[in-house]
Structure formats: C-alpha cells, structure tokens
C-alpha cells in the first residue's frame, strides 16, 4: 500500500505529498482532473501490470478504494 500511494502521489504536480493517505478522497483535491485520472490508470498498468477500467475507477472514492480494486484484479 505504501508503494502504491507513492506511485499514486507521483501523478500529481502541485499537491503536498502528506495529503496522500488511504482515506484521501482524491477527487476533492484542487488539482484533480480527468488527466490525472488517466495518469493513475496508466500508472497501474505500468507499475503493477493491472488494467483497471475507467468504469471501475469511477466508483472509487478514496485511494484505498483504488488500491483494493487494483489488488482484486492481480
């Protein structure tokens, strides 16, 4: 999970790192955009070899939700 959060955070440019905790509701962050969403989907393919669909991702509210969806598909 720690490694996942580090990679998740790396997709953001301006947001402080300490914001990225499992309960973070990332879509509420000021920097959030669909481009960052795509970067996170790409990151999961590159770093973990897991393809999470946009529909599955859309249902995720927190970072832990994303992590859980990803690990369930590994």
């Amino acid at each position, binding site marked *: 999970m720690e490694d996942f959060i580090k990679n998740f955070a*790396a997709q953001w440019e301006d947001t402080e790192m300490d914001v990225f905790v499992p309960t973070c509701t990332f879509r509420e962050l000021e920097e959030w955009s669909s*481009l960052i969403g795509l970067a996170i989907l790409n990151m999961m393919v590159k770093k973990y070899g897991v393809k999470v669909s946009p529909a599955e991702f859309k249902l995720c509210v927190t970072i832990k939700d994303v992590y859980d969806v990803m690990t369930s598909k590994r």
Partner: protein
Amino acid sequence: MENTILVTGASSGIGRAIAILCAQKGWHIVLTGRNVLRLEETRSLMEGDEHLIIPADLTDKVQQQALVNEMPILNGVVHCAGVGSRMLGRMLEDDDVRKVMSVNFVAPVLLQAALLREKKLAREASIVFIASTAATMPSVGNSIYSASKAALVAYAKCLSIELAPRRQRVNCISPAMVWTDLALVGADVEQLREAEQAYPLKRYGQPQDIAPMAVYLLSDDASWITGSNFELTGGTQTL
C-alpha cells in the same frame, strides 16, 4: 527573466543557432548532443559562461536517463536532434526505417516523457520541436524522413492538450530547406543551389532564420500559443 533551456542537437545547424540566440537573451542553456567537441564549439560561440554541456546519445536509453537525472528544472526545451534520409520507398529496409524513426521521433518523445515524469519542467514551461515542412510537402526519397516529422507534429499537438492545465506549451517549427549538414544528406550541392532559386525568396533558409522563432516560442510573449506548427518556408509551397 532567468530561463534555463535544454537544446538537443546543439552541436550544429539549427540547434546551435538556437543555443547561441537563447544565450544572447541571457538565458542559461543546457546543450546536449553526441559530439562533445562540437558542443564545446557551440558553447564557445555563446554569450555568458554558465552554460552546461551534457553529452548524450538520445537513442540510448541509459544515456537518455542519465541526461534527465542531471537536468536542472527547465523553463524550456528545444528538440532539434535529427537525421536526414534520402531513399526510395521501395528500397527501404527495417534498419533504414528504424534508424530515422528512432532519432527523429522515438528519442524526442521518450526524452520528453522522461522529463515530464521526473518533473523537470517548470510550470509554464515551453517545449519546441523542430519538425519540417517535409511532414506535409512530399519529395522523392524523403518518405521516412517526412513520416518521422509528421509523427512528431501529431504527437506535439496531443501533448499540448495534456500539458495545457499547467500552462506548459508545446509547439513545432517546420522549416523548409535550411542549409545544414542534414540538408546535404544524399544531395548534390550544385543541384541544391539551383533548386533554391525556385523558392519565392530566392534562397534556402539559414539556421539563423529559424532561431528567432524558437526564441519567441520559448518566451512569455508566446504565452497564448500552444499546439501550433509554424512553417518557415521562404515562401515555397513545395520542398
């Protein structure tokens, strides 16, 4: 304005001219290319003494990553490195295609990706790709070179949309024939001298004709310009 600009292919031609003009603006330049001696030569022609040389073969993954690792935060990047090719379409083999695409398209795309991943670009940075009017103007024996530059223009347009939220700008400059080593690949100089008379302005370009456009695109004066491809042609509609 304190700008730090990376110029690839800075050892000669258009890259060298851009590095020299950027230095006249008081900007700090990171020069890269394969030939250290020629990079040193470029630096000796530049104003200021804080310019950095980091030699690298950008088609080599390890060297490219090392370059990115050493890179300071950049306000601009000019991708000038390129190779020419004159070969009939029917003669092309695997190596011919890969070599040109590797230098002209794959290397700048992967370098740019690495710079972005490693967060080496400042907010509102400007990225300039030196493409070519060959992307849209066909000429015999130029198929792979043309294709590589057309690919670069298409890529740059997509990247401009992706980077716009950070006010980072991406543009291309597409020169027609310019007197550089690259223009001489597989060409006869006398024939080129005759052919340049067909240009409405009666000459091919010089690297110094291209550099001011790059400097403009790198500057804040161009802050509303992204996703554009500027054709500098001496008036010609064909290559």
